[in-house]
């Protein structure tokens, strides 16, 4: 976790180290800054502790401690962070109550890399 982000960056919340490493590596190659959190709780505390908010949140669903839905519910309650576009990806094959969580976009695992890069580009410019 980088301590001070000044340029636009992506917050990636996924418990699977292999996945987050791969995504981070690829997005870095594309020239995007990526910050990783390993569960919802970690992601939430990171968001709240930073002045500079990420331009996009990439969110996994199945995670220990706080899952993606719980994270999103907390995020939506917090005015300081609820405007951040949030893209959800999960292998669950279903996005429960998707509408209620007002996700910016949903991406199904295994991820389509091009679609992911396009989404990041769109929000980070």
């Amino acid at each position, binding site marked *: 976790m980088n301590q001070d982000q000044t340029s636009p960056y992506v917050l990636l919340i996924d418990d699977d180290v292999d*996945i987050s490493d791969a995504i981070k590596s690829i997005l870095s190659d594309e020239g995007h800054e990526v910050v990783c959190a390993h569960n919802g709780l970690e992601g939430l505390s990171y968001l709240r502790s930073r002045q500079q908010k990420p331009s996009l949140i990439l969110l996994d669903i*199945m*995670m220990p401690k706080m899952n993606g839905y719980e994270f999103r519910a907390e995020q939506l309650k917090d005015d300081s962070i609820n405007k951040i576009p949030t893209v959800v990806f999960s*292998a669950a*094959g279903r996005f429960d109550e998707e509408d209620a969580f007002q996700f910016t976009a949903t991406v199904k695992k*295994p991820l389509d890399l091009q679609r992911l890069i396009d989404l990041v580009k769109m929000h980070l410019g």
Partner: protein
Amino acid sequence: MLNNQFNQNSSILNRLRSVMVAIALFIVLCFFALFFSSQGLYKNLQALNQDNNLLNYSSQALESLNSTELRLPDVINRTNITELRYRFTENMKVSEKLISNAMEQTSQTDEVHQILLKINEALSHFRSSSDLTFNRLSGMELSKSTKEVDEINADLMASRQYLLDAKELLRKVQIVIQQRNDKIFNTIYKNRFKPLLVAVFLSTLFFTFVLTFGLSLSRKIGRSISNLLEATDKVANGNLDYQARVLHFDEIGRLTDAFNKMITSLKTGQDELSLAIERTNGLQNITAAFSEALTPEQVFDVVFEKAYKTLKALYGAVVMVSEDGNSLEIRRTIGLDQSIIDKWKTFPINSDLPVAECVRYAKPIFIKNSDMDVKKYKDLEKTDFNKKNEQIHVYLPLTIGSEVLGALTLTFKRAEDFDTPEKEFMLALARQCSQAIHRSELYDDARKAIEARDEFLSIASHELRTPLTPLKLQLQGLERHIMRGTLSDLPAEKVVKIIQTSDRQINRLSTLIDDLLDVSRITTGKLSLNKETFSVSEMINEVVIQYSQQLKTSQSNLHVTILEDSQGNWDKVRIEQVIINLLTNAAKYAPNKPIHITVGKTKGHVQIKVRDEGPGIAPEDQERIFKRFERVNSKNNVGGLGLGLYISKQIVEAHKGSITVSSTLGEGSTFTVDLPQEFH
């Protein structure tokens, strides 16, 4: 009472019979009356006829008397006196004969008879004087002297006087008869309508009688019939409670009575029929309700809401055989005190209770409180069975084929036994109930199986996709480098990392697939064991070495304690799989915490304990976790198919061993694998 009255033979038929006899007697009477009334007429006609004969005789007699008259010139000039006398005598005979004939026609009391007697007398005088004359004549010469002629003339005069008397008397007879005839004619004429009048009178009387009797009888019959008709109409319109009044104790009365009896029996029949229909409808309703009941609990709801109400039971219970088959559990009650329910929540299947007997022998039991049978159930004293009177207790077994699921118990407030249709109805109800319970259990099992399968498919797809995601990402990353021509810029260690990551994902996938194959083998009964004898401690050490790489990532410290080493004759690969499973779980649920393995031995059994210091498992979850697709807190976000413990349990049980868990929340869990050293 009625029958006695009917048996007194005062029936319409008898009355009609007596009327017929009366009419016959009446006709005979009429005949006699007519006979006697016409008898006078007959007598008159007879008398008339007799008188006519008399008149004939008398006029003939007069004629013959005229010819007998002796005239003087004839007598004097006559040469042959003998011939004259002969003719005279013949004529006299005729006259006398006629008179005597007439006398025969009359009775001595008759006036005519007296006259005829006098005529006879006169004739005999005439004859004797005429005889004198003929005697005198025969003594004389043919030429007679004047004196002689005078004497003869005097004789003739004298005898003529007698003849004249006789003639006079004959005329008198004629006059008397004439007068009498006139009188008879008058009488006949006067009485000529008398028999007619009698006949008319009698027939009038007869018709009046017949009409009066007939009318009264027909009115009586008519009233009875219309009374019966009224009853028939009422009954036809559905009023079966109407009873026709018995007006007279005759045939129609009997008919009415029979009609009433018929209606009563019809009503009884109809009551029974409507009861049967009510029951059939009830059963249909219950069946329909049963078919909608999906869970056993819903079936019990139907039993109480529909069945018990239809049967009007006081109270009852559904008692089910427990899973182990050793006890009975009250699953649902109605109308029972909570204290009784609490006391009898479960009781042994071999209790000396009718309900237990009903289940044990799968036979329905119907007993009354008052029955002596009650005393043979020793455990009944412990219930409140004897406290209430006039009750019938019914125990109906719930069976599917030869399997007894449980029993329905019902208690009714009634003194008399149930009849066969009632019992049949209850048995039908029990059958429906058993089928519904059985169906609901099947449904429940199927639903759970489907839910578990859906859950499994969802988890399986998630678990299979999870390793695929980084794998694909790595490949796509490489592809992008190739496209850009930056592949050669990649440092060697990064390429190695990509390959290692990919390799790990492929291992994850292959483990998942192995697990799925194991489940498939277990569920199809094709889990085969390759037994070999090996040292348990050596096996544990091999596992620890094999697993050390994984343990590093979860930063768990593994502590192995061998209390007593022993040999095991098991499928080594499978037992290793069990231990690795337990270690993986410990590392997964209690990361960064020490894991303890202890190996011990008692009585030919080897115990391998794997203890973690993780969050622990709630008591309610401890049994569940060994089932297929179950994970502690499935909402929790620990990945995995939830197959590890299930597969482990199956493997251990295939070795005739057991796997158990003991855990305290917040302190950790201990899984104990207990295996017999040798098994067959």
